[in-house]
């Protein structure tokens, strides 16, 4: 069955500039194609033209002193297999990525497509929030880095009419940082219904800095700032983990739908908050 029957033409631009020119000219009728998973599974009848991003040279994972730089068309498989990710934050980011969806889809899902589609699924975005990623966006001339929080404060729809996501930068964190991600799925390859990611800097047993993000499908992921304030400066102990569990349960903001009640999601978020902190205690020892 032809689901995308209104599409008349395809372009494979060789430069970002060219891609954006086409996008602008299209009057909202063109779609950028990363992996194309969303595009094919949820066809949009408005679309008449595809702009394939695979020839833009955006499939790479590089590093410099400060950053790991991931190109927008890198897939989850690419990222999870990249040498720099193996030990990045003790390999915990890689492990989280490798659990997403299924192998066949990990081969297809691009980081750019996932970022641009943030309101639909929340599996990758909580990790990016917690990692304080910088989203690199280009309008054809300039490449601008948006702190992830700021990026999602934009009106994405309008921004994406004239810009494309070209990549994401992740800070390199030293050994004082720990990362953890927990997710609730109905079975292994499900898209998470709730997930929580925490990045914390722990020095001499004290949480110096922390960022936390919670995603709950179908709602968007967000920064759980109250939770961060609760933890910042506290001594990381089992008691704190317990306290944080109850704090999270009553303060976290989660979506609900027929798949899972709000109450259960709050309950789970509390448990995940506690478990991640307990893992951190284990990691420090």
């Amino acid at each position, binding site marked *: 069955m032809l689901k*995308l029957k209104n599409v008349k033409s395809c372009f494979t631009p060789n430069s970002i500039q060219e891609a954006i020119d086409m996008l602008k000219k299209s009057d909202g009728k063109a779609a950028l194609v990363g992996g194309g998973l969303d595009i*094919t599974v949820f066809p949009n009848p408005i679309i008449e033209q595809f702009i394939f991003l695979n020839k833009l040279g955006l499939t790479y994972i590089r590093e410099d002193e400060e950053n790991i730089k991931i190109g927008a068309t890198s897939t989850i498989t690419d990222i999870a297999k990249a040498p720099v990710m193996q030990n990045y934050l003790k390999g915990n980011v890689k492990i989280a990525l490798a659990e997403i969806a299924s*192998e*066949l889809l990990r081969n*297809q899902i691009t980081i750019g497509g996932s970022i641009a589609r943030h309101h639909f699924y929340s599996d990758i975005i909580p990790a990016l929030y917690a990692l304080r990623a910088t989203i690199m966006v280009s309008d054809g001339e300039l490449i601008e880095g948006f702190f992830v929080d700021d990026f999602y404060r934009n009106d994405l729809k309008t921004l994406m009419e004239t810009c494309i996501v070209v990549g994401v930068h992740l800070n390199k964190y030293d050994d004082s940082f720990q990362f953890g991600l927990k997710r609730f799925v109905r079975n292994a*390859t499900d898209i998470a219904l709730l997930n929580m990611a925490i990045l914390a800097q722990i020095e001499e047993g004290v949480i110096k800095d922390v960022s936390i993000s919670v995603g709950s499908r179908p709602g968007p992921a967000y920064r759980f700032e109250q939770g961060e304030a609760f933890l910042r400066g506290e001594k990381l102990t089992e008691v704190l983990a317990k306290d944080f569990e109850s704090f999270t349960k009553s303060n976290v903001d989660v979506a609900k739908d027929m798949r899972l009640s709000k109450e259960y999601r709050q309950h789970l978020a509390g448990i995940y908050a506690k478990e991640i902190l307990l893992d951190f205690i284990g990691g420090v020892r």
Partner: protein
Amino acid sequence: MKVCYSINGKKKEFEINAGEVLLDVLRRNGYFEVKGNCYMGTCGACTVLIDGLPYTSCTMLAAKVDGSEITTIKGIGTLQNPHPLQKAFVEKGAVQCGFCTPGTILVAYALLKNNPDPTDDDIKKMLDGNLCRCTGYVQQIEAVKLAAKMLKKGDE
């Protein structure tokens, strides 16, 4: 529009619709060994290798992979000269209805190319997108391990 693929080593040119997915292009042109029905990337029956990596062809825009090398199950072995994976699937009882089998074997093929000695866990992770309602997976996993052994013994 026209696209050009190399399918199982043979150059092919097809007239396609710009919005078409690869699965439809392949089946329309007689590659019936590529199965599938969900059109959501959720069952894996439509798996093909594109430049050596396995993808669900139902979610892959045919135009996007213009110029690629595509491998279907017929590209890795034949009735007369089966690949060790195909033999191992038969031997271990890993084929029941066989509707999922082409896809599953192709993913296993890609796995063994990179990892000649996979653990159970490696196999489970790699085959997690290929749903099988008949076998319950245990014999498939055993078959992949058997094939790995056969390949190491040089049974290509």
